[in-house]
């Protein structure tokens, strides 16, 4: 099952990348995620491993994931090592006016689970889609507020320098 959530953020890709690539920030905007822990080295970048759990229905599903693509300010993709079969991707694309088109994609399933697996994937899809949509909205809010704070700090600094 594949679900995705797109959004347009009023900030350059570099600012968005700071958030999506940093594992310590995941719990600040990932909806439904109850755990996003670094496992071993490296903590971020290609080959980084995280233990993540997402609440869907009566269980927290997920497992051990590994970053398999780390293209700065553009793409960050992961795949599952243990637990639920999943492939996820943050796709960032620059837009005019210092904006960024962001898309969060997640493909998931349980290989070998047969008809019940097929049903469970579809029954769980609205919840997963809802988590993804809330996640990109929360990311947008966090990144844009951060931009506002930075601009305000820059104005204060400029005023202090002029004085």
């Amino acid at each position, binding site marked *: 099952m594949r679900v995705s959530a797109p959004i347009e953020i009023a900030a350059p890709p570099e600012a968005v990348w700071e958030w999506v690539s940093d594992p310590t920030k995941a719990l600040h905007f990932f909806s439904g995620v109850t755990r996003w822990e670094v496992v071993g080295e490296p903590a971020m970048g290609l080959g980084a491993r995280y233990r993540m759990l997402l609440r869907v*229905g*009566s*269980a*927290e599903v*997920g497992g051990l994931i590994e970053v398999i693509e780390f293209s700065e300010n553009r793409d960050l993709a992961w795949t599952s090592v243990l*637990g639920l079969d999943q492939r996820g991707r943050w796709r960032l694309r620059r837009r005019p006016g210092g904006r960024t088109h962001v898309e969060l994609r997640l493909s998931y399933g349980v290989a*070998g689970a047969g008809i019940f697996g097929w049903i*469970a994937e579809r*029954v769980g899809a609205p919840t997963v889609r809802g988590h993804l949509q809330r996640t990109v909205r929360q990311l947008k809010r966090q990144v844009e507020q951060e931009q506002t704070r930075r601009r305000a700090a820059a104005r204060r600094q400029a005023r202090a320098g002029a004085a």
Partner: protein
Amino acid sequence: MSEAGIAERAAHNGHAREEAGRPGFAARVLGELSRQLQSRIPTADLDERDPDYIRDTLPRLWLLSSLYFRGEVRGLGNIPEEGGVLLVGNHSGGNLTPDTTVFTLAFSAYFGVERAFYQLAHNLVLSMPGLGFLRRYGTVAASPENARKALESGAALLVYPGGDHEVHRPSWHRHRVDFDGRKGFIRLALQHDVPIVPVVSVGGQETALFLSQGKGIARGLGLDRALRLKVLPISLALPWGLNVGDFMGHLPLPAKITVEALPPIHLREEFGERPDLDEVYDYVTGVMQETLDGLAAERRFPVLG
């Protein structure tokens, strides 16, 4: 199967062979029934747990748990990430126990199917037709030997000290933790020096209308000696109506099941080198009862939750 074979198999399961030497026709029938059941009890081998099978079947457990029982499991983070741990639960729902289903799903999803997790169950459950798949989930016959093997292997072991006594308690006692004074779980934790994590659940006793444990009837019929059955429960349950014994199981009502795992209790750290069993028992059942009271207070309606 020969007498010797049955005895050997029972011993392998960690049980001494029950002596059913009562005179008369009823005793002979019970004795034969006992032998038949003992012969059906599968060899309790921890290696029968099959992570791939559990993984493949988790989606159906998830559907059952999420849609039918609207299961909610809290506090899994309280369970130590690794090493042996004794999970001590209150038990509800008759011979079909939804709390175990909901918790097994949550545990396996949270820690991964690779983490060894066993559950002790009554012999009768393991010998019931159609329940053989439970062994692949890690369910083994309740015996000190199997508990020892599981904990020595560093696994998480789920036990229900109240057992058949608690699981068939009347529905109006559904918000009561009742281990019937059984303290074997404390000895087990001390013996293997593993922490106890209380696991409290609510809702299971609303899956049917449980009327009586039928202890007097079980004693009168000699079931306790012949089949290790101390109860002959009576309930109103689907699809039978009046359900005596619950031997064939029943269709549980879709009661909302909520489970909460509490912080671990390290017995020697908290109660000294030689803890008093009564004090520990009172403490463990006390914190479980407090939690159950809290969970019960959250429920607005029976079944609906």
